[in-house]
């Protein structure tokens, strides 16, 4: 039986609930209904009283999760969409992120954010907010791109003593399949070489890893060997793996689905320039969405976000420099 990215998220939560009595799930429609995307389907039955529906009160949902965490629990919060986490922004960045630093008492919450664009979802059901949260000291931000990572990184996130923002990509939920759940895995904080190459490095994360891989495959037919690095975690960034890749290729394109101003792709580039300027044969480049809200119409959306075609075009430009 193949496992989807969504199955992996559900199974990781099931395992965490089974192994650790302190774990519970809180969010809108997560109980009997199993959540808007069915990421908690069946868990309320298997773990009575530990998968709890909330009112439509994001601020209070995260606030209560924080309270439970500092009282010894391991809450998992499901936001119905990443976009709605804006309403919990205060609790996330001011309460959870500062808590350990201020008091010495850790705040182990995991906030699951169904993220990223899908066709027709429009400006309020498509956002990628990893860079916003990564900006704040005290948060860990994860952006799994594979079924294996969705599983192992979520399990690790729940065990981590700090607040973790877990950005799971909605586009990957049903499309992405693996043969089985992983037995061993890379730890959080490590990037992964998703494809080896020697002419240029594309650093990507979440759904963009798959667009980058597709671009690399297409370009292989033109004789280019493109290396793809899957960041896996947005914070911390595994700068060593990126620098090692750039040392091999001399060229860097960093791709993200979120808005172009600042953010994770800019952070990667700034680190590579600062620490590995001498490794670069060309100016490092980055590719993000356009600098407008995310459009509803598929015609506009396809142009707004980086696609494999846009990534291939940017990589070809980079190779000409």
């Amino acid at each position: 039986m193949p496992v989807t990215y969504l199955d992996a998220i559900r199974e990781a939560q099931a395992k965490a609930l089974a192994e650790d009595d302190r774990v519970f799930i809180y969010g809108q429609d997560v109980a009997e209904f199993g959540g808007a995307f069915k990421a908690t389907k069946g868990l309320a039955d298997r773990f009575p009283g530990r998968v709890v529906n909330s009112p439509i009160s994001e601020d209070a949902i995260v606030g209560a999760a924080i309270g439970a965490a500092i009282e010894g629990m391991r809450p998992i919060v499901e936001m119905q969409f990443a976009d709605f986490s804006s309403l919990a922004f205060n609790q996330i960045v001011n309460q959870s992120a500062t808590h350990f630093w201020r008091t010495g008492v850790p705040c182990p919450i995991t906030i699951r954010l169904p993220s990223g664009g899908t066709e027709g979802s429009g400006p309020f059901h498509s956002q990628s907010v990893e860079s916003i949260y990564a900006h704040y000291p005290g948060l860990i931000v994860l952006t799994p791109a594979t079924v294996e990572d969705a599983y192992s990184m979520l399990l690790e996130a729940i065990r981590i003593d700090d607040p973790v923002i877990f950005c799971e990509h909605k586009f990957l939920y049903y499309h992405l399949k693996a043969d089985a759940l992983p037995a061993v895995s890379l730890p959080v904080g490590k990037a992964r070489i998703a494809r080896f190459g020697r002419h240029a490095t594309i650093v990507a994360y979440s759904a963009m890893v798959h667009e980058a891989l597709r671009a690399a495959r297409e370009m292989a037919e033109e004789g280019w060997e493109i290396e793809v690095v899957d960041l896996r975690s947005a914070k911390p960034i595994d700068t060593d793996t990126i620098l090692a890749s750039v040392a091999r290729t001399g060229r860097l394109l960093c791709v993200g689905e979120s808005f172009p101003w600042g953010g994770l792709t800019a952070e990667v580039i700034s680190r590579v320039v600062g620490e590995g300027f001498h490794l670069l044969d060309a100016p490092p480049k980055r590719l993000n969405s356009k600098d407008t809200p995310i459009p509803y119409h598929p015609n506009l959306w396809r142009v707004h976000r980086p696609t494999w075609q846009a990534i291939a075009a940017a990589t070809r430009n980079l190779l000409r420099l």
Partner: protein
Amino acid sequence: MSQSLPQSTLEAAGSPPAGTDRSVEAYRWMVLARVFEDKIAALYRAGKIVGGVYLGRGQEAFSASLGMQLDRARGDVFCGLIRDQAGRMAFGEPLIDSARTYLGSAEGPMRGRDGNIHRGRPSKGMPAMISHLGAMIPVVNGMLMALRHRKAQGVAGGVTIGDGGTSTGAFHEALNQAAVEKLPLVLAVANNQYAYSTPVSEQFACDDLADRAAGYGVRGYSIDGTDLDACLSAFTEAIARARAGEGPQMVVGKLLRLAGHGEHDDARYIPESKRSEPHGGDCLALARAKILAEGRAGAEAVAEIEKSAQERVEEAVARAQSEPAPNPYRESWHALATKHLSEGTTEV
């Protein structure tokens, strides 16, 4: 380029003949909304609409009664949410706006940038909702504050929310704000017993949401939202009091969502028995029966309303379907009104 449209499509209201009973007028909007949404649902099932489709089935009486009794000509504003097709049109949103937004026509008010129910014409008193529940109430408050600043007399602002939306911080902040400012706000809470799959028993613990009104210093009304006459009179009173300077009014209508949360949802979690409980009926069928039984309109007139709704919907949908989709290469990729300060950066 926008082509000229047949008058019947463009006209928002198409005012009813003089002397028409107002329940019959409301019924016209309810039917138009129902027929339109049935059509949209069919198009969605046929794969002709991308994104979510959320229907107001069962809520038309409540929604239309508010929208219809607000008056843009006096300066009123109205902000509907996802189940307010009826109220939006009754307030003055042209049917073609809806068709174009659902079908992604570049000619629509949102130009394909936003879609489906996320539409409005802010300069015509219809703010365009964002998805974040509760967020529109303070926006309507602000419009009313601006109107007050401009010395507009006797205006009112209507805004709707669901039972689930009352749990947001924005709902509480905005209702308190409106009360403190004594704004002429009419807040319509459609308690359709569910927020997606979540029953009201897991949403709030008071007996009746209208009980909350007193806590804010706001007048509360609790009505049967499936009874068109009750909806009309409650909103008549609420709007009159708001206009008269009595401050915010909160009308809670009890009814039942007669559809899935969206058309992707079979709503298996709603027991069939709910439909035979109080407030579980279909406001449209109930209104029709009453209008006929009491002779407010004859069978022929009612049939004519229904036929004309079908025709108008077919015409608007056909028109929107024939229009061009947005062209990404002619799209102006700038989010700022101040164009020269817009970066529009994608590749750096």
